[in-house]
């Protein structure tokens, strides 16, 4: 009896090791791309959509024969949009999964936490929606060699928001409420303030709160006294939804203006009627004909509304595939070089995607003003960079 058990155990072990061995050898037949994404947690609405968008891109690339004749294998790691979780997730991708590149880490503050790891491992990373300038170029002006992004940056976004408020909404008095716990919110508030003041407007009030706050009536009550024309809210969709409701409850009549973080469809349900007539700056317009067609084709895959992260992740994958094909190798440094040299690449959100090698930011990214009307996102206008 005992011998029988020993025999079975030996057989299982042998089979197991054979499987392991074959697993290892097949590893070199594919190109592994990591996706560091918030699949759970507060940002999961963005993350889930982003992951689906990326999967669609990978499937399409594989159908056309993959990259360098190899199939692409996507490995996801959950970041929860939390810096600590992200460090663990990215470490797992580069150390255990040995991915050749990483797409994702959508939040600026969180992407910065991942930067030292990808830099040390020499694995290029393309962030989908982190808009803070310091993600790719650090505060001393040094380029983060391995970090790229597909979206525009906050100084630009802040300028667009300020110009839109001043020129199109004819606002002269603006108030701002921002989250001191978020790099994104804090800097976007500052860029907006600088640009709006430069145009000749006045920022009549600026109030901060701490991440996790639910009740904004105290800061909003103070801002109400300044009687602003526009209230700029560079906040997450959850905070923005709460803030607009409480602002209307206090009788604030200003037009609300938001940043790209508002671009999650669940803001419509969370914010309800208080959001009517608000505007925000979006990274991509879901009403663009090309994008509309893509969404219709893939709608069934999403099982819900498509968030702009899906489009940006799709773009990032096309960009990465193009770069690896041109580099003709999966060596990190060579991929970085090829990514930097990208010029006029047709992707989903633009026909001519180009990169500034000095900053790793895309060039000529348009901003899209979206209006909230009848409980829906409506394309309002396209802002070209000057």
């Amino acid at each position, binding site marked *: 009896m005992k011998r029988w058990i020993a025999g079975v155990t030996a057989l299982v072990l042998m089979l197991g090791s054979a499987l392991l061995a074959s697993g290892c050898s097949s590893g070199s037949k594919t190109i592994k791309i990591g996706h560091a994404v918030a699949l759970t*947690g507060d940002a999961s*609405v963005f993350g889930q959509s982003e992951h689906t968008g990326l999967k669609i891109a990978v499937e399409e690339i594989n159908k056309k024969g993959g990259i360098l004749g190899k199939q692409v294998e996507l490995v996801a790691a959950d970041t929860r949009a939390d810096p600590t979780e992200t460090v663990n997730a990215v470490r797992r991708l580069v150390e255990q999964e040995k991915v050749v590149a990483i797409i994702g880490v959508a939040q600026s503050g969180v992407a910065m936490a991942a930067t030292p790891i990808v830099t040390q491992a020499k694995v290029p990373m393309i962030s989908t929606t982190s808009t803070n300038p310091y993600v790719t170029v650090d505060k001393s002006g040094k380029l983060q060699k391995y970090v790229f992004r597909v979206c525009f940056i906050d100084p630009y976004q802040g300028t667009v928001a300020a110009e839109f408020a001043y020129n199109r909404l004819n606002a002269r008095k603006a108030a701002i409420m921002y989250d001191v716990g978020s790099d994104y919110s804090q800097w976007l508030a500052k860029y907006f303030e600088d640009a709006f003041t430069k145009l000749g407007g006045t920022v009549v009030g600026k109030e*901060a709160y*701490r991440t996790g706050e*639910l009740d904004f009536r105290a800061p909003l*009550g103070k801002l109400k006294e300044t009687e602003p024309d526009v209230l700029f809210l560079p906040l997450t969709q*959850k905070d923005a939804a709460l803030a607009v409701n409480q602002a209307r409850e*206090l009788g604030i009549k200003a037009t609300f203006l938001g940043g790209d973080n508002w671009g999650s469809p*669940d803001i419509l349900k969370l914010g309800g009627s208080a959001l009517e007539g608000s505007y925000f700056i979006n990274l991509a317009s879901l009403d663009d004909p090309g994008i509309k067609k893509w969404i219709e084709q893939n709608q069934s895959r999403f099982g819900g509304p498509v968030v702009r992260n899906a489009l940006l992740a799709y773009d990032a994958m096309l960009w990465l595939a193009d770069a690896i094909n041109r580099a003709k190798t999966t060596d990190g440094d060579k991929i970085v070089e090829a990514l930097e040299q990208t010029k006029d690449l047709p992707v989903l959100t633009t026909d001519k995607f180009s990169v500034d090698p000095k900053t790793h930011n895309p060039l000529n990214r348009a901003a899209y003003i979206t209006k909230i009307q009848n409980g829906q996102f409506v394309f309002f206008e396209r802002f070209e960079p000057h």
Partner: protein
Amino acid sequence: MGELKVFLQTLITGLAIGGVYALMAVGYSLVFSILNFSNFAHGVVIMLGAYFGYYMCTLFHLPISLATTGAMLGAGLLAIANEKLAYRPLRLRSAVPLYFMISAMGASMFLENMVYVTVGAHFFSYPEVFKGSLSILHAKIGLLDVVALCVSAVAITGLTLFLNKAKLGIAIRAASRDMTVAGALGVNIDKLLSVVFFIAGAFAGIAGVFLGVKYMVYPTMGWITNKAYIAAVIGGIGSLPGAVIGGIILGVVESFVATYVSTALRDVFSFSLLVVLLMVMPSGLLGKTLEEKV
């Protein structure tokens, strides 16, 4: 005039926030007064109360009043189950309060993660009810806050009457003096604790629905009860009037700090207030004893 308006608005906002703190603090104090431990699972009962109410509003299209009743019932039963499964075994072994507290934290983490796994991390918002606001001398108060304050006042008054007049209420007060003696004198402690937890849970249900309607529903919303806990300690944990006073004081102080000092520094002030108060009055404003305070 402008200054007065801001002052009045700040005061009203503070009272409205304080009312909800009070409602949550009552649940902490009630359990503490008898079992002498801080029931850190109270926060998740509030969170699940909010989910119960939300689903009754959206899936069964019940009006908010029925949804609130349902949430009270659901959260009450959940609190009883929590007591039976997590605390009763400890009670039978005469464990020290520290173990109850750790068991409460375990129950809290378990339930929170269950929601993550089953419902997910999405945010939900209740259908829009009690929209709009009233003006009092140019200061605005949300209709929902008025309703919340009234319901909180009625619920807390009702509880006070129950504890002072009803036979079961008197038994609860007796047990809060000394559970062993009350048991020896013929009070069925098991049944009594079920009633106590049901009441605490029902209060959590009301608080959950109000928080859900006012803000939104999500798995970590129970964390706001940290504030309610501070409120209970300020008022003297174990004392019901103390919980109410503590809640209102905390809400008003927070609101004034946020308006006249800085929103970002608000929590620094709330926690400093707690530390200073405990140095001067170690058992809180209306605290009954000093032993086993955690």
